[in-house]
């Protein structure tokens, strides 16, 4: 797969948070121009993976290359130059709470370009129109619902027309209508602007509907990867359990813990 058409290339990536291993040697390729989805149970480190790609965390070993550059070896200046070409939608939205919706979307434009104010206005309104929130431009973030905040953050992430955009759980908190619009929108943005898209999500159906390629992560490893069709047809028991949302199977629902029965009977422990 390393045929030079990958925008992001991850090789043998290892990473741990204070001793707890999150990634134990994973390889991932994100193809240029495509929509790649990273899926996996809650807590497997999907958000962490995006932070590694964005250079906010450093790998313990292995390499993360974006557009041919080793992210962990970039100087600060180079890293910031790279980030100008990356858009990221945070799981929480992470809007700047002291700025209005309009100013939030205008923020990257004002920081990084010297466009005249009328042009910024037009650009912001175009992005807000795309996410259906042009009418909400004067609201403050505190007055938005969770789903609306996520959509404003999406408009902000695409404000600079980045080469790659990373969505962390874009669908959670969306009602069926905005969900449908959003799914279409993500695909359209990707195709119309020639971007590369990385989606992190556990909304299996929506994600499978727009993704060209899927990676399934679990317990620090890539469990399976392939196109949505391939996985549905040929996937392992694990894959089918995950994709179909079955409670029983090899995927654990619990965070690692001692046997529940043992812990309940343990004498003298106060917690």
């Amino acid at each position, binding site marked *: 797969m390393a045929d030079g058409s990958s925008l992001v290339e991850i090789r043998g990536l290892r990473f741990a948070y204070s001793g707890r291993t999150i990634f134990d040697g994973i390889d991932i390729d994100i193809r240029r121009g495509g929509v790649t989805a990273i899926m996996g149970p809650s807590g497997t480190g999907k958000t962490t993976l995006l932070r590694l790609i964005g250079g*906010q965390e450093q790998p313990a070993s292995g390499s993360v290359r974006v557009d041919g550059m080793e992210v962990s070896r970039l100087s600060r200046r180079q890293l910031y130059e790279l*980030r100008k070409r*990356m858009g*990221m939608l*945070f799981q929480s939205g992470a809007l700047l*709470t002291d700025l209005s919706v309009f100013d939030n979307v205008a*923020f*990257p434009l004002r*920081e990084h370009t010297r466009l005249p104010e009328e042009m910024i206005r037009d650009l912001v309104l175009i992005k807000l129109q795309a996410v259906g929130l042009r009418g909400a431009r004067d609201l403050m973030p505190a007055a938005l619902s969770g789903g609306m905040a996520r959509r404003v953050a999406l408009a902000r992430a695409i404000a600079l027309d980045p080469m790659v955009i990373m969505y962390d759980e874009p669908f959670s908190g969306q009602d069926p209508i905005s969900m449908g619009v959003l799914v279409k929108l993500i695909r359209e943005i990707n195709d119309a602007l020639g971007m590369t898209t990385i989606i992190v999500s556990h909304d299996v159906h929506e994600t499978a509907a727009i993704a060209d390629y899927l990676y399934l992560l679990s317990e620090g490893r890539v469990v399976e990867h392939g196109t949505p069709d391939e996985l549905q047809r040929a996937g392992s028991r694990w894959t089918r359990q995950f994709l179909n949302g079955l409670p029983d199977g090899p995927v654990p629902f619990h965070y690692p813990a001692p046997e529940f029965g043992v812990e309940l009977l343990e004498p003298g422990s106060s917690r």
Partner: protein
Amino acid sequence: MIALTLQRMGRWALERLERLGRSNLFLLHVVPGLPGLLARPGLVVQQTFAIGVLSLPIVVVAGLFVGMVLALQLYNTMVDFGAEQSLGPVVALSLVRELGPVVTALLFAGRAGSALAAEIGLMKATEQLSSMEMMAVDPLRRIVAPRLAGGIISLPLLSAIFSAVGISGGFLVATGLLGVDSNAYWSQMRANVDLFDDLANGVIKSVVFGVVVTWIAVFEGYDAAPTSEGVARATTRTVVNSSLAVLGLDFILTALMFGDDT
């Protein structure tokens, strides 16, 4: 038992030292961002306004009362020596050299410092700082540096206001209540308060306090654990640490500057 206590003390001391080191590194990273603010004066003006105006009411009210109390207290002593006509310069000197900078810095720590720490801590807890970094905007330059500059500009101004209001408060009490001659109050003050020695003394103090209090506030906020508990702790630490730092530094600065005079 003793070993354990020693171990705890050692760890406590090490943690303090580590924090001190980190706060120095932090400042080292923020300072290069300060010249860049010249290109965007709007950010600094906005922060100076927010920080200064936030503390203005409390500083004015406190200054008024401190000045009035000072006049009452000093008059009682000075009248015994027949020196009550010198009330003006004594009130002014106490305020300008000592109480103005110190009390204003303490109020500033409680009002503006805690607000700064909470604001930055919350921005961290809600991933706003992270999202800025991902937008290739350095929060140290965009968020921290303007606030540091705003604080450093605000505190000397607030101290000056505090002293001015205090001197007027002292005047009201002295002439209205105690029967001191109003001409004597002002002319004695003008004759005995030296621009360079006394005013500069106060200004140096308040600039130093401005740097230290704002530095502690933005560091604690930036260093806060990204949770509501972490933010609460950061605000408390800001007020406690910066108050202690102000009082300690005041002693050192006073000793240094009086040593200079004599």
